[in-house]
């Protein structure tokens, strides 16, 4: 159980003007599973490599349990990284791969064998010791790579895009496996991903990074319900943004005035609601708008509607039933629940 603290961390590459990581501050609780999320090139992998010791920070500090580890070389730091493409050593057997870190720690052969077998059991690959990496499927290789990192009982486990190389059905299996083992062993784990879904399904907390800067550090649900900027909302699939001004307990926007119960920022200038929170209105409700259905698409479990209200588009995710009742070009009244409306700062 190790507490990980990042203090004013920056990394400037010689060839680039803008810093890859810009004054990053982060506190990662011991035993937690945290995602560094952001689009590619946002500096999340750079941050992870600095934690692992594979890159030197330009400024700032990294602390494990309140002690700076910058002067400790990566091989003795205890932060083990699992790369996205598994990187199993092709000339070694599965047992040699998994036992590699223990061998580096000069552990006895018999003890290595015992721990390797135990760890292969844990990642649900028992008896695979004598196989070669290329005889395994991608998902199996991923699990071997995970076992190889876990067997040394790292202080910090670093995972690079742990689910992104896997098929849909394997993703959930791997997700459960990572969660189970992580909780069982209590290893503070940080993973990097560009996929918000991967971050949401796996992480306790998400640190969202754009352009090397931390944007928001919160529980996954908060990024849907309380994003702190339009860009963050959009990254998590927000599509309805209406500019306007706040007044008292309401917000006057380009498509009308709505009452809002949740507190927004002082400089609020954009009203947002997630498409799945928009309801089809029944008579006598407040916070409604009327518009024309521009398009409707059935996507299997529900329907996606685009409704034009005063030249503005409102995106709605509704029950598939809606398609039986309405057609393209029909008038429809939508309702925005007060507690689902969220105000974002003006841009």
């Amino acid at each position, binding site marked *: 159980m190790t507490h990980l603290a990042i203090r004013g961390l920056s990394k400037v590459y010689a060839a680039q003007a803008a810093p890859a990581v810009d004054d990053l501050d982060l506190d990662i609780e011991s035993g937690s599973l945290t995602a560094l999320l952001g689009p590619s090139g946002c500096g999340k992998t750079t941050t992870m490599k600095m934690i692992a*010791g*594979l890159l030197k920070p330009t400024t700032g500090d990294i602390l494990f349990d309140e002690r700076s580890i910058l002067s400790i070389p*990566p091989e003795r730091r205890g932060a083990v990284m699992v790369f996205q493409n598994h*990187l199993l*050593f*092709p*000339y070694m057997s599965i047992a040699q791969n998994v036992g*590699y870190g223990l061998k580096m720690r000069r552990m006895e052969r018999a003890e290595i064998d015992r721990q390797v077998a135990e760890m292969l059991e844990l990642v649900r690959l028992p008896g695979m010791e004598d196989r070669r990496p290329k005889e395994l499927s991608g998902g199996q290789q991923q699990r071997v790579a995970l076992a190889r990192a876990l067997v*040394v009982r790292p202080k910090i486990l*670093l995972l690079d895009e742990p689910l992104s190389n896997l098929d849909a059905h394997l993703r959930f299996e791997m997700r459960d496996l990572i969660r189970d083992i992580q909780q069982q062993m209590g290893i503070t784990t940080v993973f990097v991903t560009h996929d918000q879904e991967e971050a949401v399904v796996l992480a306790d907390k998400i640190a969202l990074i754009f352009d090397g800067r931390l944007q928001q550090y919160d529980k996954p649900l908060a990024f849907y319900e309380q994003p702190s900027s339009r860009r963050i909302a959009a990254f998590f699939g927000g599509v309805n943004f209406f500019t306007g001004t706040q007044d008292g307990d309401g917000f006057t926007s380009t498509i009308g005035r709505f009452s809002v119960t949740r507190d927004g920022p002082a400089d609020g200038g954009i009203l947002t609601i997630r498409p799945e929170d928009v309801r089809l209105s029944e008579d006598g409700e407040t916070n409604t708008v009327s518009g024309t259905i521009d398009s409707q698409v059935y996507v299997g479990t529900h329907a996606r509607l685009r409704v034009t209200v005063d030249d503005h588009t409102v995106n709605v995710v509704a029950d598939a039933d809606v398609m039986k009742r309405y057609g393209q070009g029909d008038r429809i009244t939508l309702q925005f629940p007060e507690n689902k409306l969220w105000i974002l700062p003006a841009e």
Partner: protein
Amino acid sequence: MSDAAPTASTNVSARDGNVGAAVRKVIFYLTIAFMCLMLVLPVIAFFFNAFAFRWFYPQFIPKEWSLQAWERLDLIPPEGERTLANFIALWLEVPDAVSALWLSLSIGAVVTGISILIGLPAARALGLYRFRGKRIVEFMIITPTIVPPIAFSLGLNINFIRWDLALADAGIPLDLAGSVVGVAIVHLVPVMPYVVLTLSGVFANYNADFEAQARSLGAGPIRIFFDVTFPAILPGLFVAGLFAFLVSWSQYLLTFLIGQGRVITLPMLLFSAAGSGNNAVIAVLSLIFIAPAVLILLVASRYLSGDSSAVGGFGRV
């Protein structure tokens, strides 16, 4: 080879297609046979010459055989005296051909080792990293294959002599000119391009993240080299070493100029024999000269065929 074969157009009948395929096959095998002949015939001629006794026109193959040339090179005792004791006595005096062979092998081995030691870091930088002036560095590295050897070797010879004299004045006998050390150094010039280009091709297909992974798991730099880097580049190292050895092995001009006639490698012996005009002696020396190359190639064929990473090295040469 397929270039020479007629290409069947898509609308011909199946029978015409079969004829086309058959013709293509014949041309293919004829080409192979021709290439084999070109490579094997001279060697067969060497064999005949090396063991022939008075082989004149119009004899297609020699009528009489002898080991005269081998005797002349002190490799075999004269007829009638071929006892084991005589053999040993003869070889204990180390025939010129044997000492030349030994010297060529030694210089080749040292040059191979040094060229890989120097070439490996350079190749890694060229294969893995992007940096300012990379194209210029790459060009500089291949210049020895473009500039005529006589041009730089004359310049080097003059400088070697100048340094030798300067250091001799200071009481340090360096003696690069006319020494084995000087010859080995100058062999590095034509050898380096092959080594660096072959290995940089290997590193271009090399994933350095494996090293980061090993490091992260607790391996120090030396362990990483032997556990991760070395196995990955071994086939490429083998090919680079092969090139280095063969390029050094076949140097005549550089050895002649820098060695000043005092460093007698196998090519030196061969060239002087060629001047003497004794076909049998030339043939024997040629066989000795070819032997190591053929042996190495036989061993290497395992590495040169198949989809090992060594082939990546060939891609860049």
